[in-house]
């Protein structure tokens, strides 16, 4: 079916709110999914993989800083989804970059890292260059890089499949974020088989989505709304009076 961006955002907010995300985080999470989908980067596909586990973060520890100096930090996300923790990690990299010129924040034990792109893009808009790198999966293993220049509105994104023997078990579920207020960062994977989506293509994808809306599979739409129904209160005669009566 076809839905608008606003419909998707509102439904996602309810979905994440019902899943126990905090005020502020559920807006961020909804915007992260929408941003990917709006810019042609398969936000709903990523979300489909996320939905079966979306309520589990409620029972996990909050992210915490396990190492920090003036130009870097390491955060343990305790297996949380990037939807539910990555925005504050990018904020921290941003703040350190403003103080030091360039900063790196590494997030460990974080799922769904593709969603970092929205947070990176926000940095570009606010005058900070930002980049991220992560690996994903086990068979096959893929690597991903995204970057945006200071003052720009759209990032580049690259993806490639890598050989198994190049992969270290230590970097599973890790994400490296680099921010700089002085250097324009531009990541491109060295892998010759990588595919890259340029900022210009990202912009074209957005324009198409704004014009025509979003096509969504019925099963995902129903699942988002089923979870989101958790914030709705049962309708009763007394409840109807809470709306002012007839």
């Amino acid at each position, binding site marked *: 079916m076809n839905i608008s*961006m606003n419909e998707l955002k509102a439904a996602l907010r309810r979905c994440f709110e019902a899943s126990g995300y*905090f005020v*502020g985080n559920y807006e961020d999470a909804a915007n992260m999914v929408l941003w990917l989908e709006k810019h042609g980067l398969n936000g709903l596909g990523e979300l489909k993989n996320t939905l079966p586990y979306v309520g589990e973060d409620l029972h996990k520890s909050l992210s915490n800083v396990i190492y920090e100096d003036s130009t870097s930090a390491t955060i343990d996300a305790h297996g949380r989804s990037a939807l539910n923790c990555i925005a504050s990690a990018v904020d*921290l990299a941003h703040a350190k970059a403003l103080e030091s010129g360039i900063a790196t924040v590494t997030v460990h034990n974080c799922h769904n890292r593709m969603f970092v792109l929205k947070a990176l893009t926000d940095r570009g808009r606010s005058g900070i260059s930002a980049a991220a790198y992560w690996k994903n999966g086990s068979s096959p293993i893929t690597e991903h890089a995204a970057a945006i220049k200071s003052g720009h509105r759209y990032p580049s994104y690259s993806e490639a499949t890598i050989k198994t023997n190049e992969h270290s078990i230590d970097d599973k579920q890790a994400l490296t974020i680099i921010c700089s207020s002085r250097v324009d960062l531009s990541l491109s994977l060295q892998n010759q088989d990588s595919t890259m989506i340029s900022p210009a293509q990202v912009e074209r994808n957005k324009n198409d989505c704004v014009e025509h809306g979003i096509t969504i599979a019925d099963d995902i739409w129903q699942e988002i709304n089923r979870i989101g129904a958790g914030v709705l*209160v049962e309708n009763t005669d007394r409840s109807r009076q809470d709306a002012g009566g007839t």
Partner: protein
Amino acid sequence: MTTYAAIQNSLTGNNALPLRPENQVMDLERLGSFHQSRLSFMRTLVRRVFKERWKISPSLFELDNNGFGTVVYTVEAANATFSFVIFSDYLSDDERNDRVIATKWDLTMALVEGNVDAQYIEKLRQNVPKQEAGRVDSRVFVLSRANRSARNFNYVIDNLSQGKQPDINKIANVGYLYRTTAVYGSGKLGMADWEKVQAKHTDFARPFAGEMFVCMMLRNFSLLQVEHIAKMRSPNTFIPLDYDIKRYIGIGNSTGLGMAPYLVNHPQLISRWVEMRELALARVRTLGAIDQRIIEQLLALLARCLAHTQETITEDEWQTKKNVKIISDLQKLIAFSHAGIDSWNRLITYSEQHCSLQGQEMLVSVMLEIYPELVDELEDFHCTDELLDLDPLMPANTLKQIIEQRYNWALNIDFDAPGAKETYWYRSEEKMEPRLGSVSDIEGKKKQMALGVGYAVRKCYDQLCQYVNEHPTETTARFLVTFPKVRGIVRRIQCMNKCTYGDIQANLLDQHVLPMHLLRCKLAFFGVSKFDPRSKLWVRNTMFQGAPLLEDIGNTFSDNWFMPLTPKR
């Protein structure tokens, strides 16, 4: 013509005009005392349509003798062509319901980009009458529905078909033939998002311009339809409605709690609207020259407001008392002004000392009315980017100081006092209708909407004080890594600190909170009149009463429908 930079310079900095203070203006009861003004969205829309001489006429007129069928208006605006499509269906009296939860209506309608062909009209026909139960595509950008006035609709037809004009007093009692019960835009039900409308449809790229246009068209259709039905009923005796009665007929509107969360969830936009209104007032106070002609105009407008309020009919005791007070206020203002005024500031000061909030804000609307040359250009600046971006580098200590300066109203609320957290806002599973409950409903409380901004600020501030004591040099980003639960409110505080007028200052969780103030505030920005509360949670009102008619487009235009009065017979 002014610029964004000039406006910013008027709001802040060394060259700023003397604006009313935030603590005065953003008080909820004052916001709920605002009235329509020449910056209201209906007024700005009508000015645009008439100044740009839009061509609007029916391109399809397929109504049967009873007025049921389909009508399509082609709208040739200044920049593009649009279609306004109306479906008129039979509805029995017992099915007629103004609540959001209704499922059938007398009229349903859509505003669509471009021209529509028969195939597309059929597609709309399959969906628009279903409203929330239907789906449309991104060519549509406003969807609405309306119900007939039980008191006026058939009465007017009966009279016209018998060759008589309706009694103007009966019209005055209600003021409309149809009442719209919802006007949807911004991507609801598959429609185009605001992002598209703003970027592509310049003609409607102001807040709620499309929605207001649909209401304006509904009003004009209602006049066309009653004349059509009356004529079909009795062609030999039928007479058309008198022009002045037509102009006096507006569109009814029922607004409930659904509008209230909008004001809380769009704080930057609301602040922007308030900024333009207050900037207009500051311009008048500072730049508005006063001479005898201006004083006569002031007296005439005050008298008009007085008559308008006297003509406002409501059964609601609370509103009746308010109206009585406004009438008294206006009489005082007239007497004071008769003695002669040489300064708007003096008149404002007088009103603040002697009038109710509603009387004071009525005077503001009157003052804006007198100086279109100082006010009207601000209508182009009601939009704003609604980006709630975090400033991660802001020192946590600075964040604390901002709360102390901009949110002192929230810190002054005793949230431990009885009743201070008694109310909660929730969404019903029935069409997700917003409702207002009591915390005694434990299950419902768990699902409450995050509208308690003041309380959230208080909780954030307490954590922040503790954090700043321990980490006096840390940034907001670092604070939020430690306290991620307050991310939403911190972002809001930082962003609203950049706005001249900030957040609405009220504890929306208080047991005595009056959502009516929220509804009234937004409706005043729309430009409605004749507030008629039906409970503390929903209100009837009238739109476009007194506005010029479609048939007037292209003729001389006088923007003179402020506070419309009953035509004299």
